[in-house]
């Protein structure tokens, strides 16, 4: 979303909260929270200019631990609640945040529709491939064979491919990063924020409690940066993006997979905003009595 409010001089201190986190030591969520904060500082977005809407899960507590406008909502529903907030107050930088269960499990329907609508929001998926807060069940992105309390023989199904899913659903910005690389993560989040239209960031993340195999070292060896390995990669080309999304050498490509700047956003096509671009909450509620009489007249 291209922020319509003035950029503000902010520092990391402005986002500091006194609230104590309940995350496990070593949780990837710390890195993601840092990255979000850095992205906001670098983009010049103050705590009052952003709205972070989250669902339910460990990572969805993020707005509780950082000084920003937030709204911690329901499992999977942050995706649609965030869009409602965005459509009513288009001047807030809206970031939706939730885990892989929240985003790709219970909330996947909302997410797909947000993508095809090109809602001008950022959706960060804290993707650690496991359910944390419910104590370690397999998730929609878990690898096949992953043994958990609800998949004691190993998960039978295949995990979701977030990149291919987002591409086919019409997301106009698709990025991926890793919680253990806060600088890269911050840069991808900032680019997502500055993208006009829907942006998803698949944020790979460690869960030191329930997904011990996929620790920081594992991710470092299993990821690569698109820009380093493929200098000629063109993120504007959906065919290349699909190819990359479907390639399966066991490693995760990081960076901007896809970006399309040509599609209009949902909100800019709404008639009321074409007439008056101020957020709907700033429009007057006063009724013109003549206009109201004309509404009644249609029933006579």
């Amino acid at each position: 979303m291209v922020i319509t409010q003035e950029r503000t001089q902010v520092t990391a201190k402005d986002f500091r909260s006194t609230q104590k986190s309940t995350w496990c030591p070593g949780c990837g969520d710390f890195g993601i929270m840092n990255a979000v904060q850095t992205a906001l500082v670098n983009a010049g977005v103050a705590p009052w200019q952003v709205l972070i809407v989250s669902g339910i899960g460990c990572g969805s507590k993020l707005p509780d631990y950082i000084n920003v406008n937030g709204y911690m909502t329901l499992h999977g529903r942050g995706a649609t609640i965030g869009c409602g907030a965005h459509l009513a107050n288009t001047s807030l930088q809206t970031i939706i945040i939730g885990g892989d269960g929240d985003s790709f499990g219970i909330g996947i329907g909302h997410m797909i529709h947000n993508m095809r609508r090109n809602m001008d929001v950022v959706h960060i998926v804290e993707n650690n491939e496991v359910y944390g807060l419910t104590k370690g069940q397999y998730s929609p992105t878990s690898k096949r064979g992953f043994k958990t309390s609800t998949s004691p023989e190993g998960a039978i199904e295949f995990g979701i491919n977030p990149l291919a899913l987002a591409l086919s659903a019409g997301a106009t910005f698709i990025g991926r990063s890793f919680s253990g690389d806060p600088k890269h993560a911050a840069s991808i989040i900032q680019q997502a924020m500055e993208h006009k239209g829907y942006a998803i960031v698949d944020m790979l993340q460690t869960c030191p409690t329930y997904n011990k195999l996929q620790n920081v070292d594992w991710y470092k060896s299993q990821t690569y940066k698109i820009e380093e390995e493929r200098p000629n990669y063109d993120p504007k080309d959906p065919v290349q993006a699909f190819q990359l999304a479907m390639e399966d050498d066991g490693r995760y490509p990081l960076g901007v997979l896809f970006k399309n700047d040509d599609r209009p956003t949902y909100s800019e096509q709404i008639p009321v905003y074409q007439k008056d671009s101020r957020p709907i909450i700033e429009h007057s509620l006063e009724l013109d009595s003549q206009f109201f009489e004309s509404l009644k007249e249609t029933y006579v």
Partner: protein
Amino acid sequence: MAQKNKISIKIAGAQGQGAGSGGQGLAKVFKRAGLHVFGIFDYMSLIKGGHSFFQLTLSDQEINANTEKFHIVVSFDPQNVQETVGDIHTLQEGGLFIVDDSINLKPEIEAAVNEVGAKLCKIPMIKLGTEIGGNKIMANTVALGAVVGLTGTPFEILENIVAENFAKKSKEIADKNVAVAKAGFDFGSQNLKSEFNFSMPQSNKDKVAGKMLINGNEAIAMGSYAAGCRFFSAYPMTPGTSVFEWFTKDNAKLGVVTKHVEDEIAAVCMAIGAAQVGARAMTSTSGGGFCLMVEGLGLAGITEVPIVVVDAQRGGPSTGLPTRTEQADLLFAVNSSHGEFAKIVLAPGTVEQCYEAGVRAHNLAAKYQTPVIILTDLLMADHLKDSSKEDYYIPEVDLGKVVSKEELDKLGEDEKYLRFKFTEDGVSPRALQGHPKSVHAPATDEHDETGHITEDASNRLQMMEKRMKKLESAVNDIKGPEFHGPENADLTLIVWGSTYGAALEAVQLFNSDEANKQKINLLHFTEVWPFPVKLTEEALKKVKLSMSVEQNYTSQFCKLLRAETGYVPNKLINKYDGRQITPEEIVREVQKLLSESLVAA
């Protein structure tokens, strides 16, 4: 049990043939001619085919329900006419059964007409439609013209309405339709008027012609808009859809954001998101969709977000009777979503009350920062009635306790804005996100005054008490039940929501019959949660014998009444076939109860 000063007309046909739109057009004709009207389209859950009909009642007084018997039944579909035996049996003796003259009627049709003592009127609908309009589909316009003609209603009114309805197409189409209507009108006035031996009610053009003809859904939408609703997200579901469509149709002109979303979960959640940042927001649905929304209601409850949800009930459970009426979501609505929180449930019973419910729902939601449910049903949603323009007033918009930008500016550096500040009445002053001094992040978890998550027991107590206190305050804003009909009646009908209409007609029908020595009245509830206990107890003191009338199996309202006041009516009447109860049915039950109690005495 013939009702006086009323003429009832039924237009039957296969769906997609124009019985619904034709009936609506006819209602408008008679209203502009100065008659009070009441009409509803009785339809099936399909697009084309089936058997449906528009029921229209005309009177010299305001009408609140259709009658059981009809004076005119029109059928303009060649196939469908063969299935109208049931409709013929609703004809009064001497009533007209109007069909196309080219159709070979099944013997049982003619037998039925003879049995009820009605008159079979064959008119050249298809012939005139084809010859003048060039299309046999215009047969329905011929039929409507004939009804206008035989009732002695001036043609100019029909002409104007036909022209208005087709104005959006082309002048040529409009002219053709007017010509076809005229042919039908002439046929009706020349050949059928003499057959029609009922006198039309006295018209009062000055009083009635300028009134609105509006249904409950449109009235709720208009009231909501007038009260400042500017955000509407919804998923289509009969019969709740047309509240949403009122907003979408003119969204640019109205200056509103409307969003047709992927499901009812998103419908309520988007509205909550919009309301959280300050929009007056709502959604509309029916029972099945409402089931999906209740998770969101809990969120709005605990995070104290004002939203309005319309549940236009239909026959349940599950898909049930999608195009039929029922009042079986009451206890579900009152108890919707897990856990305990303040919510308000309104149940308007007339189109005017629907407008007021739209206004009040948004004002009460803002005042108490909590969800408000408007509970109607298919009958309330769909029926058309003449309604005075004055009842559609420009209301005051109550934003509730708000902290303005200017007040936020004045907050000192170390003064923190508390979204969930503990207050006397449980309502915390609301500041919107988007100001440097109002930064906050409400949690759906139990939270402290700032909105931060906490599981602290003493905070939980205080927070629960704060939220529940809103219910105690809100009850003072809830309207108590109202009596209609004579004071000191021997029997009182207890009704809520849309059953008011049939009950009121029943009161008039019963009391106007000199054979009935006793008098009845009714007690109508339009706002049911928080339950207006004191006002109800006061009203019940004036009740001798009582009979509840509800369109459900389990007398849900009476359960609520008993739980809140201990009162149990003498007799519970329930109807759950999906058809609106008629005044005549109620009167029969009243007579039964009165004679039983006489015997008992």
